[in-house]
């Protein structure tokens, strides 16, 4: 698997490079799919300095799922970004894929940490060096700083805890550490557990650590943002499952699970209100990613089979939806050069494909019934009700209702209303390299909406691997829970049938009462004549009145990023003296800091 890495170094010519990129990713996907069909064990260990370091790799079924998500996202992403990237970009991207694969198949701490770091650094390089922000002033230096600082903190936390675990168990194997974590009750297991958890929360962008997400997503290359949202944000979930899932299922860990569930709910609320506030497309989607990921954590905290199924369904869905939406947004940005809602508008009849794509995306994102997004939510809600966590349920209903507003803002701001800065006469449909993967994604979202049961089979494999009960599967078209069931197939058909009947009825009326096609500006506007200059597009203002709601206003007004930056600046003042020791540029000093910190962590770990 890791061999796929090597390919990219060979590419010198542009087309070859692109082809190689796609082929290697396709190869990776193929290999992973092969693993499903014929479960050969390719666990292997690699002894470096025998007796001291042993790297062991084995791909669990969970790792396989995440690897598949990553590989498919990477494949689609490579297709979508055909021909627009330089060589360095490809190198870094594949390096990151490699890191991801190492991480997902890691069996011991060192390979886990190694994969984690390779992934983090290469993704940092990617979005920092190949940023999509054209204007150098627009590009904020803070984003990169924030990202790398938080990543470093998380890495250090993780390193410290891992060494602590090594010291306790005397084994580099993750499984042993996990077993130790779950074996020990009380404070000794909580503190490292919480520290480790914050590292993972950081990667997935949960509440106190979400600040790096919006800026990074906004500035990353457009298609890479899709990958970030669809695949990289899932790494935190993988790590969480790896270390904590059995933990949250333990007897007596109810408070911790409840806490995680609430962290999820609060993150979702904050992120949703922030998303409504955003004026640019990628910023909105970034915050929505945070919110959607938070549901997954809430569901995992519940811990029942249904909830785990819901979490996995939601996760897969989220990957599909975010790939779709980011691809289309990337296509629109490429065609129009505009990124903000107050610059776009009125493109619906010029970009029908993108419109339908975004429509499918937002219906699924908002969790509306005929499409797949609903069923993940349905499983989460039902599991919450079965568990009796009604207040948590209320906590996640609030953001998922508020999510309708940003979903509407997304589609209205781009496609509906009146055009603002983009002349729709000149607008063209997004290019085919975005259209093909978007089409595939749309089809899979609709398919999952029709047959939500399709996902249950793989989910059941994972559940049995975790030692949990499997979910009942009666037919492909329906989902079942102890307290009720829902048939996606029926919902889709009934809705479609009713829709068709009414459309026919309306067309029958149409003969007697024809619809007159009106000019764009011929609108009921209190007798006034709007002109081209009249600001009729509501793209920026849409959702602003949410701010007047007390709770939303309180959330939107505060900015954690600013607080962090303030703390950072104060710290920076103190560290000014320390920095005197390190001559040279920032990167060198960063690396040296890291090395030093690693040494400190090692020391702490060995002593403790």
């Amino acid at each position, binding site marked *: 698997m890791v061999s796929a890495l090597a390919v990219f170094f060979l590419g010198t010519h542009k087309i070859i490079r692109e082809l190689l990129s796609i082929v290697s990713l396709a190869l990776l996907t193929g290999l992973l799919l092969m693993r499903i069909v014929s479960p050969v064990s390719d666990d292997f260990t690699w002894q470096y300095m025998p007796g001291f370091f042993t790297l062991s790799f084995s791909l669990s079924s969970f790792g396989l799922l995440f690897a598949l998500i990553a590989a498919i996202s990477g494949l689609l992403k490579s297709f979508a970004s055909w021909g627009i990237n330089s060589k360095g970009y490809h190198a870094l991207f594949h390096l990151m894929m490699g890191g991801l694969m190492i991480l997902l198949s890691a069996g011991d701490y060192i390979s886990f940490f190694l994969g984690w770091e390779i992934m983090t650094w290469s993704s940092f390089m990617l979005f920092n060096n190949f940023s999509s922000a054209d204007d150098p002033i627009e590009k904020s230096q803070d984003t990169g700083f924030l990202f790398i600082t938080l990543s470093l903190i998380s890495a250090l936390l993780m390193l410290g805890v891992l060494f602590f675990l090594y010291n306790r168990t005397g084994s580099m194997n993750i499984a042993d550490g996990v077993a130790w974590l779950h074996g020990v009750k009380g404070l000794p297991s909580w503190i490292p557990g919480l520290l480790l958890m914050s590292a993972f929360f950081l990667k997935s962008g949960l509440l106190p650590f979400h600040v790096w997400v919006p800026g990074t997503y906004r500035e990353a290359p457009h298609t890479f943002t899709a990958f970030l949202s669809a695949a990289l944000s899932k790494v935190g979930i993988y790590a969480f499952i790896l270390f904590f899932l059995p933990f949250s299922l333990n007897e007596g860990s109810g408070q911790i699970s409840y806490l995680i569930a609430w962290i999820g709910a609060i993150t979702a609320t904050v992120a949703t209100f922030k998303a409504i506030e955003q004026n640019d497309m990628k910023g909105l989607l970034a915050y929505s990613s945070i919110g959607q990921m938070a549901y997954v954590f809430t569901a995992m905290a519940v811990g029942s089979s249904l909830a785990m199924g819901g979490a996995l369904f939601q996760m897969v869905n989220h990957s599909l939806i975010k790939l779709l939406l980011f691809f289309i947004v990337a296509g629109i940005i490429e065609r129009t050069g505009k990124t903000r809602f107050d610059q776009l508008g009125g493109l619906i009849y010029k970009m029908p494909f993108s419109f339908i794509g975004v429509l499918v995306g937002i219906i699924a994102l908002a969790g509306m019934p005929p499409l797949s997004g609903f069923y993940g939510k349905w499983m989460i809600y039902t599991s919450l009700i079965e568990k009796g966590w009604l207040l948590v349920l209320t906590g996640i209903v609030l953001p998922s209702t508020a999510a309708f507003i940003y979903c509407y803002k997304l589609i209205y701001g781009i496609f509906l209303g009146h055009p603002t800065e983009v002349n729709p006469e000149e607008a063209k449909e997004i290019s085919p390299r975005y259209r093909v993967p978007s089409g595939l994604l749309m089809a899979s979202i609709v398919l999952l909406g029709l047959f939500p049961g399709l996902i249950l089979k793989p989910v059941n494999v994972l559940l049995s691997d975790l030692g949990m009960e499997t979910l009942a599967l009666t037919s492909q078209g329906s989902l079942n829970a102890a307290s009720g069931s829902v048939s996606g197939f029926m919902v889709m058909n009934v809705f479609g049938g009713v829709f068709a009947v009414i459309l026919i009825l309306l067309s029958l009326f149409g003969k007697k009462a024809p*619809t*007159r096609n009106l000019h764009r500006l011929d609108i009921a506007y209190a*007798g006034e004549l709007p002109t081209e200059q009249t600001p009729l597009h509501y793209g920026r203002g849409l959702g602003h009145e949410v701010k007047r709601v007390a709770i939303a206003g309180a959330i939107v007004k505060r900015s954690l990023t600013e607080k962090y930056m303030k703390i950072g600046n104060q710290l920076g003042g103190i560290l000014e003296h320390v920095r005197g020791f390190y001559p040279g540029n920032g990167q060198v000093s960063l690396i040296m800091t890291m090395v030093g910190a690693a040494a400190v962590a090692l020391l702490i770990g060995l002593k403790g």
Partner: protein
Amino acid sequence: MDNLNKKDKAQLKELKSPMAVVDWAVNWFRKQSIFMLAYGTGCGAIEIPPTVTARYDAERFGVRGAATPRQADVIVLSGYLAVKTLKRVIRTYEQMQEPKYVIALGSCPINGGMYWDSYNTIKQLDRYLPVDVTVAGCMPRPEAVLEGFMALKDKIQRGEAEGARDYRDNIEKYKNNQKEIFGDKMLPGYTCDWYFSDGGSF
């Protein structure tokens, strides 16, 4: 439907062909449900609230207010029309959906009324819009306004309230008359283009 009165029943008996019955029924529904857009152009605006509230209660005749021209059946122009207002009124009228009717209240829309020598009000509304019913008076009281609605209902039932059709057929004439007032500041083409063609439909 108990509110079919004697006159309606008598009319219904005279009809011969089934199509005539359908037309009659459609007209009956149109007449029984009138969504009114009260355009308060002048002093008559104050006569509309008593007409629709407790004292005179226009709703018992099926007359109720509409918020936007798209939903309205009848536009009630209450009083004098300044040139500037007329432009908005024409625009509002053209935004309404056929069949649509115009009721003009007071003397001013008929002959200029007490503003006959004003430099800025029009003197005769039906040069510019097809008025179906005029209610004379300065101002007409709510009874007279209701009387106007009754007259309109009769016209609708007889199938004669076809001001909209008249406007469409004689659009050149109306537009020329409007042009006399507005000069080169006519309404832009998109507000009335469909009158000069078939208009798209699907």
